């Protein structure tokens, strides 16, 4: 295989992988705060892209994206307050089921609000036909934005959890809820903030990739499944592992194009993932403690 082709697959993999990683990071934030796997995570990405595409006609692009992220973050927090507060103590099964129901509701509301048409966002730099080259491989400048924003999210989160008071409070909460509340941290507030952050991150991922992949009301489910796959693969709760796993999955999907009929691409990647899960039931970098997290 010529070098250009390999590099081309790498860039494709980078795009897929960064999106999956961003969604997975969102999963992990909520998981760490509450022990819930939030299937609605994919819908947040969809909401971000759709909201931005509506606003992009009215205000400058950067404002549209920022507003979309903020609005989606607020919705995420609101959803937690209204719906998921009550489900938190009902057990893993019920929580998964509730968030699946939520994701369906959000999707159908989006269908009502925006219709079934496909929408796009203007490219952040350049346009639909812009192309950059590197050693014979060509890609859209948007790829930089995608990879860049995932890196930014990672860096921002690391800084947040390590250096800010709220970040440390959230970490305390996830490590030991009762202990944290004894110290004066309000676990409920932490959970709401976690949902807001998660939704915002999902929205940003959705916006940044919308120019490339286009967005419509039904993209959330697929993203959620891939994001969940990646989060589980890396080990639930471990965001760095999610990024690694996301990129790995992206590359796997991209390179399998060379060898496997595209229609079976998902079969191959899922089989690999499942094989890995069977070998290490708590994910690549996960721990027993994380897998047993019950609140």
């Amino acid at each position, binding site marked *: 295989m*010529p070098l250009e*082709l390999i590099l*081309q*697959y790498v*860039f*494709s*993999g980078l*795009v*897929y992988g960064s999106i999956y990683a961003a969604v997975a990071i969102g999963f992990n934030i909520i998981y760490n705060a509450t022990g819930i796997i939030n299937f609605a995570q994919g819908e947040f990405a969809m909401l971000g892209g759709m909201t931005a595409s509506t606003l992009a006609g009215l205000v400058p692009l950067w404002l549209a994206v920022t507003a979309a992220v903020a609005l989606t973050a607020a919705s995420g927090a609101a959803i937690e307050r209204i719906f998921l507060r009550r489900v938190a103590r009902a057990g893993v099964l019920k929580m998964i089921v509730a968030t699946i129901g939520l994701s369906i509701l959000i999707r159908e509301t989006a*269908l009502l609000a925006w*219709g*079934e*048409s*496909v*929408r*796009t966002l203007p490219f952040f730099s350049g*346009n*639909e*036909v*812009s*192309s950059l*080259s590197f050693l014979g491989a*060509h*890609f*859209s400048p948007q790829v930089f934005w995608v990879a860049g924003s995932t890196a930014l999210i990672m860096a921002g989160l690391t800084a947040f959890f390590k250096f800010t008071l709220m970040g440390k409070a959230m970490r305390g909460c996830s490590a030991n809820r009762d202990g944290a509340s004894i110290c004066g941290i309000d676990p409920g507030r932490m959970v709401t903030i976690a949902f807001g952050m998660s939704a915002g991150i999902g929205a940003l991922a959705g916006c940044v*990739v919308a120019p*490339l*992949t*286009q967005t*419509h009301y*039904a*993209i959330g489910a*697929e993203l959620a499944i891939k994001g969940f796959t990646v989060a589980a693969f890396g080990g639930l709760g471990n965001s760095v592992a999610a990024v690694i796993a996301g990129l790995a999955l992206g590359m796997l*999907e*991209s*390179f399998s*194009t*060379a060898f496997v*009929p*595209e*229609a079976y*691409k*998902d079969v191959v990647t899922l089989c690999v993932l499942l094989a890995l899960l069977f070998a290490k039931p708590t994910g690549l970098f996960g721990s027993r403690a994380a897998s047993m997290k019950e609140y």
Partner: protein
Amino acid sequence: MRIRSIAKPAVLCAVVLSCLSPAYAADPIKIGAIFGVTGPAAYLGAPEDRTARMVVDGINKGGGILGRQVELIVKDSGASSEKAISFAKQLIEEENVVAIIGPTTSGESMAIKDVCEKAGIPLISCASAETIVDPVAKYVFKVPQKDNYIVEWLYRTMNKLGIAKIGVIASNTGFGNGGKAQLEKYASKYGITIAISEVYDSNATDLTALLAKVNAAGVQAVVNWSIEPAQSIVAKNMRQLKMTAQLFQSHGFANIKYVQAAGEAAEGIIFPCGRLIVAGELPDSNPQKKLLAKYNADYEALYNEEASTFGGHAYDALSILKAAIESAGSTDPDKIVRAIENLRNFSGTAGIFNFSPADHNGLLMDSIVMVTVKKGKFTLYRGN
């Protein structure tokens, strides 16, 4: 528009009235429709649904069919075959419809083909699979053009452009696989070599990996056969990969939204389709021009979006049904079927229909023209 919820009291009143005054033929004609308004085929089913409602409204305002109002009963199957079967049986046995139009997808059409045939109720499908009308079932018709004609138009154009080596990519749907099969079947007849032929997931959001693989095979043109928004993504990805190959699409591209989504990358795409989207460029003598212009104008006025050929299928199905009922002078299924089979030179959005007992599709090669995109608009392709 007759909404289902007011149908019963309305019919009741009509029955009472008809008892009082036998001159009123107030019994509505029930026509069933199964569309995938929501779900994975929504971009097909939703325009079909909107068009159908608009057409029935128009028919009713004009006095209905045979003096009777039309009641359209639309069922949203979400492109699911088991629902299509359930709704087909419901429409036939409970609602006693005169005929069924739709479904949107080939899978659903094949699932209810037997049901309608055995029940003896005419079915006019808006889906494209050949197997819907081949083998011919007495009561089953379809309105989209035949895939092989589309393919032959594509290949003829390629011959004119001197293109001999192509790559084929198709989405993993009935539509995509059907087109791919026809492309492979007719390639040698036109001296075309298909260097690489691949199927991709219909939900694919990025096709750079696949297109890179196609490009590496050294092709002069790429034919993309799909009906999903992925068509726009293919166009964008090809330009981002700096591919110089000419992009041909299928008639699934005949929706201005796909051009808008692809932006500048849509310039120069060539594809075959019906005359609906280039109606403005047709000479006034063209028999389809008037109805195409009217459909375009009405649809845009009512729904604030440009008409697409997908909605056009519903338009054709309903107009054919109306013409058949009027020509037969009755709603008896056998008479309707015979009337459809006798339709000649019937202008529809997809082309001029000429049905016969052996041909339940009625469209030939001349129903198709080659179209390209210039400055973000569809225009007739007149060669380089």
